[in-house]
């Protein structure tokens, strides 16, 4: 696992400042250990040294971001990147991806940055966003009160409970680390061939995927949802590869499937439904073999138990009734069983058409082709008037 920790340094500030984004440096490092807390009451803390030597990549951004949400989105995109590339799970709670932020503010028109304050203990993108916004306000308030000199170079902790930052330690200046080029790590010259091989082996990255989905005609909401999780995106791609309609596939995944995953707390790789069967399901509805309503029933079956669309249709006898004679029989039966309502309908209460349609559908156990049903029903209802 490589990408373990992302430092982004957004020198955030209030609306009257401005920056540009490029990545400043990559730092290869290695992890040393992780603290393991047993319980909040425990006096003891264990140090898990099994991470010693695990490679770690630090990415330091330029001071380009102006708001908390921008910085959080930058970090989220890096998380998508490490997940797409399969270099790490990018999980912030587990510490597989960490993010420290630096915040400085300056008055409009000033070219040099203000004093930089580092914030640690950010365990989610939302805390990244909120901590930055809090820190911007804190520093802006100090400036507005003429207490700008109280902003010092330090490391502050984000306290999730209190929703504020507090001083953790005052920091030494950068040069006092006495950095110099590490002679035991010579420069690495990468051959063009090596670079080309890496480039050619790259999967489709989040940004490319989003552009592709956009060009398929999907809405921005659909694009963001599908491309957010590499596994969802792969499921979607596999489904449409079987020929499914793009919009229909997106709707199924974002609708019933996403809802099921959320309730059951499952990832898309853990559900029993396969892209192959989702594609079958969409095709069966489109082809008229089953109704949309039946389709939802089958989907639930597929999500929980697996199996094939064809198998479930046969097993449960769910094939749509599309034989006009059979439907006509059912319509006749419903009309004869409800003479009172028929009389009312013919007396002008045409709204009762829905009632009759519902009765026929109930009789067919939902299998009657709705279009055919309505056509025949209307003919019969209006026949003797």
């Amino acid at each position, binding site marked *: 696992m490589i990408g373990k920790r992302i430092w982004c340094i957004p020198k955030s500030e209030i609306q009257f400042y401005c920056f540009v984004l490029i990545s400043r440096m990559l730092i290869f490092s290695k992890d040393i250990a992780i603290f393991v807390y047993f319980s909040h009451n425990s006096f003891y803390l264990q140090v898990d040294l099994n991470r010693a030597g695990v490679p770690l990549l630090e990415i330091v951004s330029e001071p380009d971001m102006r708001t908390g949400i921008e910085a959080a989105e930058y970090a989220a995109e890096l998380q998508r990147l490490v997940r797409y590339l399969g270099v790490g799970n990018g999980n912030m709670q587990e510490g597989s991806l960490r993010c420290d932020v630096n915040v400085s503010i300056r008055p409009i028109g000033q070219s040099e940055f203000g004093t930089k304050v580092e914030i640690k203990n950010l365990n989610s993108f939302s805390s990244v966003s909120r901590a930055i916004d809090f820190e911007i306000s804190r520093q802006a308030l100090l400036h507005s009160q003429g207490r700008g000199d109280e902003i010092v170079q330090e490391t502050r902790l984000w306290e999730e409970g209190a929703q504020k930052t507090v001083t953790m330690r005052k920091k030494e200046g950068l040069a*006092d680390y*006495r950095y*110099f080029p590490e*002679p*035991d*790590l*010579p420069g690495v010259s990468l051959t063009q061939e090596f670079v080309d091989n890496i480039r050619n082996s790259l999967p489709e990255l989040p940004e490319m995927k989003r552009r592709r989905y956009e060009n398929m005609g999907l809405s921005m909401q659909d694009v963001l949802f599908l491309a957010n999780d590499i596994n969802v995106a792969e499921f979607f791609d596999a489904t449409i590869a079987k020929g499914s309609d793009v919009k229909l596939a997106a709707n199924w995944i974002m609708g019933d499937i996403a809802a099921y995953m959320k309730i059951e707390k499952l990832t898309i790789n853990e559900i029993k439904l396969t892209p192959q069967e989702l594609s079958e399901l969409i095709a069966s509805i489109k082809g008229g073999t089953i109704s949309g309503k039946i389709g939802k029933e089958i989907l639930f079956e597929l999500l929980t138990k697996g199996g094939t669309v064809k198998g479930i249709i046969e097993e449960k006898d769910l094939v749509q009734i599309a034989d006009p004679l059979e439907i006509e029989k059912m319509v006749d039966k419903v009309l004869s069983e409800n003479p009172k309502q028929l009389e009312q309908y013919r007396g002008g209460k045409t709204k009762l058409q829905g009632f009759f349609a519902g009765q026929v559908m109930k009789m067919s156990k939902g299998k009657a082709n709705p279009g055919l049903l309505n056509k025949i029903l209307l003919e019969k209802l209006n026949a003797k008037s």
Partner: protein
Amino acid sequence: MLCTMQPPRSLSRFPSNPIFLLRHHTSLKTLSSLSSHPVTDSTLTGQSQSHSSQILKARHALLSRQLTATQLAESFLTRLRLTEPSLRSFLHVSDTVLRQAQDLDDRIGRNEEVGPLAGVLVAVKDNICTSDMPSTGGSRVLEGYRPPFDATAVRKIKELGGIVVGKTNLDEFGMGSTTEASAFQVTANPWDISRVPGGSSGGSAAAVSARQCMVSLGSDTGGSVRQPASFCGVVGLKPTYGRVSRFGLMAYASSLDVIGCFGSAVADAGFLLHAISGHDTLDATSSKQEVPDFTSHFTSINLLESKPLKGLRIGLIRETLDEGVDTGVTTAIRGAASHLEELGCSVSEVSLPSFSLGLPAYYILASSESSSNLSRYDGVRYGNQVAADELNALYGDSRANGFGHEVKMRILMGTYALSAGYYDAYYKRAQQVRTIIQKSFKAALDEHDILISPASPSAAYKIGEKKNDPLAMYAGDIMTVNVNLAGLPALVLPCGFVEGGPVGLPVGIQMIGAAFDEGKLLKVGHIFEQTLKDCRFVPPVIDDDIDVAS
């Protein structure tokens, strides 16, 4: 003819070891299958000179069954025991030497294949890690430390059949030029035990000089192989930076450190270098450059033409013969230059204007790197810990207690040079000087095949003479530090004597080559050594009969 002084042979010596007189008339079976090393022993035939290869002689004696490995080992161990009380070159002597020798004899007895270094007794500088012996780096902070692994160079020697005799004394972590900065003992120069053997690899140089072992490993950050080689009258080879893996060498200044070789003959330094060279995945700075057989072009003296080095362009570095260099040394080097001319070389003076900048640049860079490298000795990860109430005191007290004066001074200098506000004036400037020095050497070596200079401005001085004058001691490194800054290979071999001590003191000539051109240095050195008349670089402290297979 060049050696104006010849050590008289009448000084008190340790008695001759009877084992050398032993002859074993076991069947002289052909053991050609064992000759896995391509070098022939033609260079040795009929010779019993001080410069003939101990490795080849040992090999010849073993394979012809004139001697057993046990007898060989015993003879060296006996001499070691006799000389050690006055020399103190070893911090630790292995107690498994005879057992390893016996194992080897058993294998030879069964006609099994043995490695090219079979039975070769190697001493290893104590800043090079050995898993079966303590490795202290000459420091209290690592007293009793036993690494769980062998340095790559040591592993290779063992794999080829070499037997590690023991660990040799050094200036703490290689920081010093006299071996007086060892935390444990002061080593004496075998030519005059009131004098220093040089440093920091003083133990390894003295051990080879006194024939306590056949060859030895040292390390060279600013001259720590070459200057003691010169002081002790042995051959010292500093390879190109990256030629030998530094894995298992306790880091002093990582961009300058190299493991080097000592031998009593050029051939032995060549054999040893060949054994330990090559890329190592455990050292990212070790070179993937091909390792040629450095000794395959050696020619026996009997086969040499009258001008064997005809056409070779030698540059005598003008700045190394300036004031501040003992006249005896200058005379010896000029004599060596004319000797090279007689061998057919064209010798001209070459100027390296940046030469004098090397010393300050070296002491800034080496100290800076050491201040970082030595931070690992915190009493927690390695070695000795001083009990303390809290963590910072534990670090501080362990270091205060563990490090010697010279090491502390260099850590402080390095820390200062890297500090905010001084970085540009010191570290950065020194790096710029380093680049200039590299360029000037490159230019000089484009015009010349080999550059020559003294290995040190003086011969060995008295113990204690410069102990309280570090600047005078540092100044003694002027001849060697530039070569480390440029990362080039250099060979030091004895070329003459100056007055001093009971029988005179040896002087070494330094031959500097282009990167990875150790082969040329060894070839020239080999011819130089064989044709140098009337010089016998065997110190008076030992018996003169050192030819084990005579």
